């Protein structure tokens, strides 16, 4: 548990002064950040900006989960790493960057794959979870773990020049399964290492994830709960659409849930383990 601060230190008051000058974001908001924690799952394209801005905003604690290592082909979009980090754990590399950027932010790393076995315990010390992963199995796993352990989830994805984002399990809003009760057929799922991705597009989406996390932690209202932000960078179109509310018959957050503990997500998503593994290592 974070030790609850009653007051910002003088250093913090100076460091975050430009933020606290805002009419709608006062010292109390900044103090709430200092008493909040956020876990980012994935230190790849989405994670790069999400971690940079969450690490610098004034959160008391951030956590980074990634079992992958930095590769040269990552660097066109994973700008929290660099050429000197090739071969290094992405989680450690991101932690190093945050320690230089904001030495006062407690930054923990988990150099492992998030699994049904470890997800609940890794999430436990955090208030908010950011899904910055790149595959559908991880997304269902994180969603279910967030519902079971009552964490707000900020989910996003990016492919080619497109991105999608929504906030789940927030103030009685829907979860990812409410919107997506059945996973897509395996052959319908695009991947960055097959379909490609323009580097800055996950950067944009990761920034939006950080913004939502900051607002939620500071006690402002989330903007994209029961809403979906849909960005098409090719044509510059941005849709913010209303989605269905929490579904009574949702299998994990509904009235009579059938998913009461974490399940086998590779099986649920019709994916063989080897495919997932490939996807994560080359692409996270």
């Amino acid at each position, binding site marked *: 548990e974070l030790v609850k601060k009653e007051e910002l230190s003088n250093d913090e008051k100076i460091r975050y002064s430009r933020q606290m000058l805002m009419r709608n974001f006062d010292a109390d908001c900044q103090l709430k950040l200092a008493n909040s924690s956020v876990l980012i799952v994935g230190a790849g394209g989405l994670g790069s900006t999400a971690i940079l801005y969450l690490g610098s905003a004034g959160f008391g604690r951030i956590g980074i989960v990634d079992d992958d290592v930095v590769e040269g082909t990552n660097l066109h979009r994973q700008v929290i790493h660099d050429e000197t980090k090739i071969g290094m754990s992405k989680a450690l590399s991101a932690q190093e960057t945050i320690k230089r950027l904001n030495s006062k932010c407690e930054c923990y790393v988990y150099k492992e794959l998030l699994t049904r076995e470890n997800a609940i315990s890794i999430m436990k010390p955090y208030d908010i979870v950011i899904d910055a992963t790149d595959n559908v199995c991880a997304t269902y796993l994180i969603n279910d773990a967030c519902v079971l352990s009552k964490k707000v989830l900020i989910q996003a994805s990016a492919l080619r020049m497109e991105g999608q984002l929504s906030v789940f399990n927030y103030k009685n809003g829907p979860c990812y399964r409410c919107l997506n009760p059945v996973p897509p057929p395996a052959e*319908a799922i*695009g991947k960055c290492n097959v379909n490609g991705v323009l580097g800055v597009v996950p950067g944009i989406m990761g920034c939006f994830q950080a913004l939502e996390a900051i607002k939620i932690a500071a006690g402002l209202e989330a903007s994209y709960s029961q809403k979906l932000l849909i960005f098409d960078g090719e044509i510059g179109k941005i849709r913010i659409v209303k*989605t269905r509310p929490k579904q009574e018959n949702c299998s994990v957050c509904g009235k009579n849930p059938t998913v009461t503990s974490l399940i086998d997500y590779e099986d649920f998503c019709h994916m063989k383990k080897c495919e997932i593994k490939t996807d994560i290592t080359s692409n996270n």
Partner: protein
Amino acid sequence: MVKITLAFGGGMEILFNNTKEREIELPDNVVNMKDLIAYMKDNLLQERPELFVLNDTVRPGIIVLINNCDWEIEGNLEYQLENGDEITFISTLHGG
């Protein structure tokens, strides 16, 4: 004659002639979303119907919007199409 706009994203446009937006005039027998999906499958889809439909509705993993609102709120397959409607099909993305 009911005229609607079809919009595509997330890769769905690849199945529909690589156009992200187009206007179409509907034949008289296409009155609701169920009819529209069948009509699109038979007349507009270029390839691989299994990436669009499953059991007379869209396959899992497609976000369907009626005038920029989740179709689940608007009545799903039973929604009655109106002149000027924008109907959007966007595949959920997985990547980061």
